[in-house]
Each structure stands twice: as structure tokens, then as C-alpha cells.
């Protein structure tokens, strides 16, 4: 145990500060994972690329996503239109880039909502325990009984289609699994001696909850957020394909698929490119989430 010996070391013999753990154990762990997990690297590369393409879409293309050009409909890929044009003469690449924006924003917003709700309910349920715990978690179980897509369809059938409604629906649908995850972490973290020690030093319940229990419980949510992005993107594309998601003329991958499937034999590029975009996005997030889970989960790490 070299760490035990540190107690005897005089001042000038302290081990040099290697800077590896600067920023705290969680940051250190994440940066370690980033440097050593190929899965995480590939996932992150795909995800960041998509985010950047979506964010800088107006700078990357000179076309407008909704500008109709009836003189150039259904053009195959060429130098002027890298991925061709659709039945209204709109540049396919431009629409893909703008659609990436939609998917990323809806995904991030839905995941943010589901995490905020999940953290709120999971933390309160896990820390309060007893009746409060039971009421909150049984409600969560109730919501969890509905498949996310079905819940979204329910919301749409009541409120009508639209991106805002979809992201709220997904946010609520994915909240219970986050709440369960966080609650289970909170229940084990609050048994740690540092929680008791903080109380013994006069910290209030709120302070203990926010400074001690919550920060030590959130790391599994990083994984679930990444996987959740994948689910939301697929769900959004599915609803778009059914015509219940983004409404025309908004560019959206699922809607682009359904609009062009009739022309599969005459203009296959219109089908392949949005399909490939969905694939890349989902694979990116799932790889990132899976890699993070493998790297952060101590049970899986031991077997490596």
C-alpha cells in the first residue's frame, strides 16, 4: 500500500502532482475512458460530426432547405447537387443537414426533460423513502407501462402533431427509467458514511441531498442519456415517417423517407441518404452510450 506510506513522507518528498485527477474523480474517469475506449471514440466522433453539421448547416450549403426549384426536380447526384434533388427540386444534402438540426435539438431537449424529471423524482423518492417513495415510484411504473412511441401517439392524437409536443411526450416517456436508475443509486449512496458525517457536521437535508447524494449518484445517467438520444432519434423518425412528426415543409429524416419511398426505383438517392443519416446518428449515440457503460460500470470493468 504505497498510499499508506504517504503519511510518513516529509514535505518535499510528496509524489509529484501528475495533474491526472485535476477536476475531480469523475472528470478524471471520463477523460481516461475517452483516451482508452475505441467504442467511445468512434461514437463520439459520429455524434460530434452530426452535431457540428447540424449546427453549421447554413454555412455548409448555399441552398435553402425549403426553396422549391421546379426546373430541377429529381436530379441525380451531381456536382451542383451532391446528393441530388427531390420531387420539388430542393437540394437533398441541404435538407439532410437541416434535418440533422431538428433531430439533434428534439433529441437533446427530450433527453434533458427526461433527465430533469427523472433526477427530481428519483432523488426525492430515494432520499425520502417510505410513502413518498412508494407513491412516486408506482406512478413512474404506471407511465413505464406504456411504450414510449405509444405515449407519443397518445399525446399527438390529443394535441395534434408537432415537434414541440413530440419532444415533451418523449421527455415524459423516458423520465421513469431515469427516475428508477437514479433512485437505485440514491438508495445505495445515502448509506455511505460521508452522508452520515455531513449530517453530523450540521448539514441540512437539502444540502446533504444536493451536495453529497446527488453528485455521487448521477454518473449512470450519462450513459442512459446517450442511449436515450438514440431512442429519441429513432422514435422521431418513426413518427415523421407516419406523418405525425415534423410537418411540411420542415426537413426531417423520417418524413423525407416516407416522401420518397414511392420513387425508390427512379430516385434511390432520396431514400438511401436519409436512411443512412438515421443509421449513423443512432449508431453513434448507441456506441457512445455502450462504451461509456462498459467503461464506467465497475462490475463490467472487473472482468476486463
Amino acid at each position: 500500500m504505497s498510499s499508506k506510506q504517504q503519511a510518513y513522507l516529509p514535505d518535499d518528498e510528496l509524489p509529484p502532482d501528475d495533474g491526472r485527477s485535476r477536476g475531480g474523480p469523475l472528470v478524471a474517469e471520463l477523460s481516461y475512458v475517452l483516451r482508452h475506449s475505441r467504442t467511445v471514440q468512434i461514437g463520439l466522433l459520429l455524434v460530434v460530426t452530426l452535431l457540428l453539421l447540424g449546427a453549421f448547416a447554413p454555412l455548409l450549403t448555399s441552398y435553402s432547405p425549403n426553396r422549391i426549384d421546379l426546373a430541377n426536380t429529381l436530379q441525380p447526384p451531381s456536382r451542383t447537387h451532391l446528393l441530388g434533388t427531390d420531387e420539388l427540386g430542393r437540394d437533398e444534402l441541404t435538407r439532410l443537414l437541416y434535418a440533422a438540426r431538428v433531430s439533434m435539438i428534439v433529441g437533446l431537449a427530450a433527453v434533458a426533460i427526461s433527465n430533469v424529471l427523472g433526477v427530481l423524482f428519483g432523488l426525492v423518492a430515494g432520499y425520502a423513502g417510505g410513502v413518498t417513495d412508494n407513491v412516486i415510484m408506482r406512478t413512474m411504473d404506471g407511465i413505464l407501462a406504456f411504450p414510449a412511441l405509444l405515449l407519443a401517439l397518445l399525446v399527438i392524437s390529443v394535441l395534434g402533431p408537432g415537434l414541440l409536443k413530440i419532444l415533451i411526450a418523449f421527455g415524459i416517456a423516458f423520465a421513469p427509467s431515469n427516475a428508477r436508475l437514479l433512485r437505485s443509486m440514491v438508495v445505495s449512496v445515502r448509506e455511505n458514511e460521508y452522508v452520515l458525517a455531513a449530517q453530523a457536521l450540521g448539514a441540512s437535508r437539502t444540502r446533504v441531498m444536493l451536495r453529497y447524494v446527488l453528485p455521487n449518484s448521477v454518473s449512470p445517467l450519462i450513459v442512459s442519456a446517450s442511449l436515450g438520444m438514440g431512442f429519441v432519434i429513432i422514435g422521431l423518425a418513426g413518427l415523421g415517417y407516419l406523418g405525425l412528426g415534423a410537418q411540411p415543409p420542415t426537413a426531417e429524416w423520417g418524413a423525407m423517407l416516407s416522401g420518397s419511398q414511392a420513387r425508390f426505383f427512379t430516385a434511390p438517392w432520396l431514400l438511401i441518404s436519409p436512411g443512412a443519416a438515421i443509421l449513423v446518428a443512432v449508431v453513434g449515440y448507441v456506441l457512445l452510450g455502450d462504451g461509456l457503460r462498459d467503461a464506467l460500470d465497475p462490475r463490467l470493468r472487473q472482468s476486463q
Partner: protein
Amino acid sequence: MAELLRIENLRTWFRTRSGTVRAVDGVDLHVDHGRTLCLVGESGCGKSVTALSIMRLIDPPGRIEPGSRILFEGRDLVELRETAVRQVRGSDIAMIFQEPMSSLNPLYPVGEQVAEAITAHGEVSRARALDRTVELLGLVGIPSPERRAKEYPHQMSGGMRQRVMIAMALSNDPKLLIADEPTTALDVTIQAQILDLLGHLRDRLHMAILLITHDLGVVAEMADDVNVMYAGKIVERGTVESTFHHPQHPYTEALLHSMPVLGMTQDEPLEVIRGIVPNPAAWPSGCRFASRCDHAFERCRHEPPLFRAADQQSACWLCEDGPRAAAGVAVAT
């Protein structure tokens, strides 16, 4: 010597589905200003629950039963509301724990945690709190405190972390420090360092210490007074000298003789206390030690009160008519 803490008839019971566990069942004790009281007993006898009861950190299903009194400077802590208890915790009474490895929040630098303990009570500016943090870390013997304050718990050894815990406990000049087996998880040389430090700080800061331990060596080294606990009750109390030299209760006597002594050979059998501690959900009536006691006789079916015996008090019928002759052990104090 003026009295700082007086506990009267403390009963902390846990009402579980499988019955009421009477972990602490009628404890009386008192701690004087500036003195060290050791609460000794084997695992499960209620020492830690007694300590947590003083801090009012008993969670359901545990409950401090009505009629229990914990008087700190004359104020009954049992009666206080949660917000008022919080004022006492960490300022008048502070506590350190057994496991320094897990007593610190792994996510923040240790200096920040000490500073947090300072700002939890009273209005202190952040800069002032950081100055005081470095001062406290120096006081508990951490070398280059400015630099160590920026380190995370995982970068420190167990002994260093226990020093940080002590610094946090001292941050508001407590009058009473409760130390629940503070050295159990440390190796022997570090144990000695931490005990030295506690003794030194007690004298320097004029605080009283309630030290909970099952290690009689620690008792001999640290204690002014000793209270021996068995099965949720105090069975013997006295000064450390009198208790070690003339143990009055058979349990204390057996405990002292089950301790290996330097110079013993392998041929000498180490005495053990036969049997096990009775189930706390169903204490036997009468003397709770009777089933394991070599001296048990008819009267032990009735519960003995604490009798005055020589310089001690002992809850044994043998001491009804004053001190009995019992073999003690030598102790250097």
C-alpha cells in the same frame, strides 16, 4: 469538575417487523468538561447507537423512546426540534467515524469540505474560511496544508483522511468530540499517531471526548473514565485506573482477561468469554450477562442495579455489599 453531558435513561429502540430491537436500553452516563470518557463494549452492545442518539442521528425505524434525556449543558437534546439540533451538530458537539476511507465525499477536494464545515455554522466569508481550513489542516498535523487542501480524498492515505475528518470536526471549536472507533480501520502505527493527536488536541482546545472503542489498549492510553457497556446497558463505570486494577463486574473482568498481554507464550491459553451476546430483540430478564457468567447464582434472575463498589459502580449482585476481590490487570497511565 463541571458536567458537560448527562444522559439519563436513554432508550433507543428499533421497531422492526421481526420485533422491537432494544439496542440501547436505559443508559446513564455523564461526561465532564475537558475529560475523556471511554465507552467500551463488544460489537452490537449499543455503543454506536448511543453516540448517534446524542447527535440525534437515529433514522426510522429507530426511535429515542420518551423518557430518555440527553442533557448537554443543561439543555435536553431529545426535546429539540430538528433545526435546533442542526445548530448543535458540528458546532457544540462534533463526531468522527470509523471509516476514514468512506467518510469524505469523493467528489470534492478535502479543503473545500473542511471549508464547508466552517461555513455551515455562522457567517464566514469564503476567503476567511479557506484561511481557517489551512490553519486547521496544519493543526491536525497534515504537512503542506495549502497543497493538501486541493487534493481529493482518493489521493490521501487512511490516516491523512482521518486527520481531515478531525479537522472538519474541530472547525467550530466543539465542546464535545464524539469519536466512534476512530482508529479501528487504521494500521497500528497510524492508530498511535491519531490517538496522540486526539489527546494533544483535547488538552489544547479544552474539549471533552467521548471515545467509543472495543480496544482496551486504546482505553488504557486515552481514557480518564471508563464506562463498560453490555447488551444495551452500562454494567460498570469508574476511572480507568480503578476499573483496570479492580474490575468489579464479572463482564469487565472477563473482558480484561481475554486481552493478550505482551510476554504471553503460546502455551498459555487466552481466556475467552463463552457463549454469545443475547438477541437484542429479546433480552433475557434479570442480568443480561448471567448466561455467560462464571459467578451466576440465584439472584441473577432479577436485574441488578448499579451498586457503588470501591471507586466504581457495578451492576452486579456480587457488589451489593461493596467491592469484591477480582483480578485486575496492570495499566500504565
